[in-house]
């Protein structure tokens, strides 16, 4: 059992990383003051790696991801610190043109809400063709070739009769179909990183499951990297290689999927795991008591401490740092920091 102090990002000397977020903080301006929604997030994604970002609604997952594509309205946010390195270059320091380049050719994001993600007044084909046309990756393709590329992408997401779908409008498609179209759009041009923001949440479970399988297959087949945002550890377990657990703007634990499920360390992770329904029964789990803290006045301590079954005096006074407990398994909790009997148990 080794305990290493220090920052997760500092340990990452590996330059082959596709995406590397270091100490990112994002605050929303509200009339009461700044809501500190993302409070120092460190995470990275390797080439062709699938990672999961898990946490409950409103914990800052989507905000973090939207920062990668710079999709937040700059007049509504404050970014006090942090770096978002994409292939070693900081997206936050890029100019408008370079950001457009990232959006066009490198990163795509599947929206949380398939119902709202498609423009209601344009046909699917028109929307998809524009993505291909403005990606700049098919400069020589004519109208017909672009249409071919789109039809292929629609076929890839297991929708038959691609040509009819391309001619139809969002309101004519079911939720599941729209979600597939959103996936097809994100994969229609080759991009290295795909961010999927809770795809399928709005759909019923069987279709949700199909969508997840489809996404995994496509990402693996095309060798893309994936960040899967979800509030369900069960979904993450099925899909991804490595998991980040996020709570109220902080990464509280990260590990390979297997390791995380074998020995979850953070009390919050434990709570989440108990929420995954099991066939073996036991009824509905106890869940996690309480609510996400107030982001405007989050307090100086661990943000989970008011809900934590293992909270101690120090938790309210100081913020725990991420520490490596086992190779690749990091956790931010004082439970594993004090040089006392608790460590012996591990």
């Amino acid at each position, binding site marked *: 059992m080794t305990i290493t102090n220090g920052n997760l990002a500092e340990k990452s000397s590996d330059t082959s990383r596709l995406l590397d977020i270091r100490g990112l903080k994002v605050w929303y301006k509200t009339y009461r003051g700044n809501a500190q929604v993302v409070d120092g997030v460190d995470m990275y994604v390797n080439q062709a790696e699938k990672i999961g970002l898990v946490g409950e609604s409103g914990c800052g997952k989507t905000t973090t991801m939207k920062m990668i594509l710079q999709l937040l309205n700059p007049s509504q946010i404050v970014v006090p610190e942090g770096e978002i390195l994409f292939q070693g270059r900081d997206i936050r320091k890029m100019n408008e043109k370079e950001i457009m380049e990232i959006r066009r050719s490198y990163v*795509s994001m599947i929206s949380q809400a398939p119902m709202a993600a498609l*423009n209601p007044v344009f046909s699917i084909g028109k929307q998809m063709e524009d993505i291909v046309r403005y990606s700049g990756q098919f400069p020589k393709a004519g109208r017909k070739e672009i249409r071919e590329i789109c039809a292929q992408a629609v076929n890839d997401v297991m929708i038959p009769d691609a040509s009819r779908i391309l001619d139809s409008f969002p309101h004519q498609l079911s939720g599941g179909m729209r979600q597939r179209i959103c996936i097809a759009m994100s994969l229609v041009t080759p991009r290295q990183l795909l961010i999927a923001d809770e795809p399928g949440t709005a759909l019923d479970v069987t279709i949700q499951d199909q969508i997840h399988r489809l996404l995994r297959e496509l990402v693996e087949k095309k060798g893309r990297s994936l960040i899967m945002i979800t509030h369900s550890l069960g979904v993450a377990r099925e899909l991804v290689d490595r998991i980040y657990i996020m709570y109220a703007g902080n990464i509280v634990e990260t590990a390979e999927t297997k390791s995380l499920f074998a020995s979850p360390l953070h009390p919050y992770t434990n709570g989440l795991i108990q929420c995954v329904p099991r066939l073996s029964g036991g009824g509905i789990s106890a869940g996690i008591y309480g609510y996400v803290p107030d982001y405007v006045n989050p307090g100086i301590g661990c943000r989970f401490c008011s809900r934590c079954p293992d909270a101690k005096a120090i938790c309210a006074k100081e913020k725990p740092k991420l520490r490596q407990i086992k190779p690749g398994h990091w956790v931010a909790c004082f439970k594993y920091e004090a040089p006392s009997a608790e460590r012996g148990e591990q």
Partner: protein
Amino acid sequence: MVKFLVKRLILSVFVLFGISVLIFCLARIIPGDPARLALGERASDEAVAELREAMHLDAPIYEQYYYWLKDVLKGDFGLSLNTQRDVSLDVQQFLPATLELVIVAGIISIAMAFVFGLLSSKYKDSWIDGTIRVFSYIGISVPAFVWAILFLLFFGYVWDILPVFNRLSAGIPEPNRITGMYILDFCLQGNLRGALDALAHVFLPALALAVGHIFQEARILRSSLIDNMEKEFISVTTGYGIPKRKIMSSYLLKPSAISVTTVAGLDFANTLGNAFLVETIFNWPGISRYCLNAMMTKDLNAISAVVLIIGIIYMIVNIIVDIVIAALDPRVRLGD
């Protein structure tokens, strides 16, 4: 689309039928003898009796309606008390001028609304936006007939920039009558100078009709542009790196244009109504001025004809608005 249009047209025919009943009822509700009213105080009793017979005034009311409608469908509204001519002739003479006026007013209001709406959403919360906001309040609160008086005064007399009164300057001959709308007729005959002169003459009354709507419609366009800008689909499109200009001009503008088109259609009713007052102020020889004169003298045949025709014009405008909205919005076009 075809099905949608057919349904729309059938409904319109029913409403038109209803309007005719309403107008007929109004014309018969009036106290006194319609025949006496039509002929005036000094007409002989024999003449009145003769007209009563011709108007079937002794038959039951529904039969009267039947005879009236039969004539109306043939284009016969009877004689006008004021002009002592067939009302249908008067309508033919005066209608094109009004059409020209309201069409120009409609084009001015929607075009300017788009310009100002786009400006105020682009420069949101700047002085441009603020100025347009103030003007929208002024536009709401100052009635069209007051605008007409002010424009007449300042542009016509004080600064003398634009012509007021009459449809053409002296020395420019009337165009050969094709549609009766001078601008169109001049254009069809290739007389650019005449067309511009006609446009200059129609501009002030049209602006007086349009100015109240311009800034209101601009505010509506602004708020739907700003609403839509916050929508997920615009965020998604931005995320795919589609250029800002393209997003503004198509992905954002098209869904935002729907609400302002609807409102512009409703506002057209106001334009038609206010034309009654504005034409009088500018002495514009249109059907509204003609009808207002008829109203002052209880010239029922003329009133019925003009109200029915205005109803038809408004209906046609509504159908056009519906077609535009259907073209913009596939949910309307293809059904939900």
